[in-house]
């Protein structure tokens, strides 16, 4: 069971109060009409799937209801940090 720190509530709560919502920091194209099929498809369907550090979006669904981001290791499941939407992660994977 993950024990997750909600940056809005400022408290640790059990995983069951939260829902994972996939990759974080996805930017909608500025001008969707100008996108090629490939750019639009990449935005819609292609997600990072790292074996290791991952930045993902979570929502405190059975708590404050607010979204936030998490940096987590997808192998050990260790949570490195949680941070608010709009903030940048402080733990990042070294580019290989």
């Amino acid at each position, binding site marked *: *069971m*993950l024990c997750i720190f909600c940056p809005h509530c400022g408290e640790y709560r*059990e*995983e*069951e109060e939260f*829902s*994972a*919502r*996939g990759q974080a920091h996805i930017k909608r194209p500025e001008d969707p009409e100008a996108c090629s*099929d*490939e750019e*639009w*498809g*990449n935005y*819609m*369907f*292609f*997600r*990072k*799937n*790292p*074996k290791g550090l*991952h930045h*993902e979006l979570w929502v405190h669904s059975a708590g404050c209801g607010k979204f936030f981001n998490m940096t*987590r290791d*997808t*192998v*050990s*499941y260790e949570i490195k940090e949680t941070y608010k939407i709009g903030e940048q992660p402080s733990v990042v994977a070294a580019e290989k």
Partner: protein
Amino acid sequence: MQKYSAFELFKNSVSHHENWPRMWENPVPKKKYDIIIIGGGGHGLATAYYLAKEHGITNIAVLEKGHLGSGNICRNTTIVRSNYLWDESAHLYEHAMKLWEGLSQDLNYNVMFSQRGVYHLCHTLQDIRDNERLTYANRLNGVDNEMVDAEQLQREIPLLDCSDKTRFPILGASVQRRAGNARHDAVAWGYARGAAMRGVDLIQNCEVTDMVIENNTIVGVKTKQHGVIKADRVGCVTAGHSGVMAKMAGFELPVESHPLQALVSEPIKPVLDTVVMSNHVHGYMSQSNKGDLVIGAGIDSYLGYGQRGSYSIIEHTVQAIVEMFPEVSRVRMNRQWGGIVDTTPDACPIISATPVKGLFFNCGWGTGGFKATPGSGHVFAATLAQGKAHELAEPFSIERFHNGALIDEHGAAAVAH
């Protein structure tokens, strides 16, 4: 290699079954193969088998990082069915179903395929409408499927609580009677033996760590244990690790890897002779030939490569099972485990050429690829042999995520399996 028969069984019983020959050897890999298959799971082994048997290509190696069948093939809950909604998937899964129906004979290996039926329960009017639609769509595609009402369902499955006293009363179900399950290990071993018999090298403990690509064409793979092994074509069939493999080849796949869990109870006397699944309360159960109740549900919602999941998921799964089968509430659970499944945005697999010439991927089967094992191997073998997609595989190209021709199976893919 030895053909299995009643006579052989008798003959070997005389020596207390101590002299059966090995089913495959552990060869040292050659420097170069016509085709390399990465991943010794069900789909990879089936691909090798059909390449050798139907296309006469035997200079093949299957490279497996652990032992054969150490991935999802031997972790899954073995549900086999073909009642998918859309034409493309119904054709693909029905192709597999037809192969299942003759598989034990074809492999000369008993995969214990048992067509005991699979029920999809309906708890709401919308469930009934969706399942009726599915039933009609299936029949138009020549796939059997029928509706049964609650009364008949209760007669067919006494263990199931079809009363109106439950939180989500059961209104009826659709049932595919040709569906059922099979013994997963036997499927892996049967294909492995069949492939090895025809000259395929099965290389275990051989992890692929990189792809060797020249002029945008695959020329081989780099392995941890045996260095570079060359090949004209490479088929990657690594299920949960497909995203990692694609990255080695320099492109991205629209797959995400999630933990999927299952659990089995202690063995008990026969209580359930079919497979029951419910999307609504979210769980499914069958009983193995050994007597254990085989239970599963949905994926953990986060990405994970840990081959284990969260306890909260198990708790929900068991709640669903007790809702459907209150009588088993005090049966003790024996084991619980997880696998890594590669899910796609439309819950359909990817069987496809890639941006790298000569490199093909067969992945994205997510939570429901066991049922497709023979079909997947069969069409992927043809794809690798011809260097272009088999007719049934064509709609499952990666291109669909750019041209928009998705095959949305979220409804029929169901609780998952």
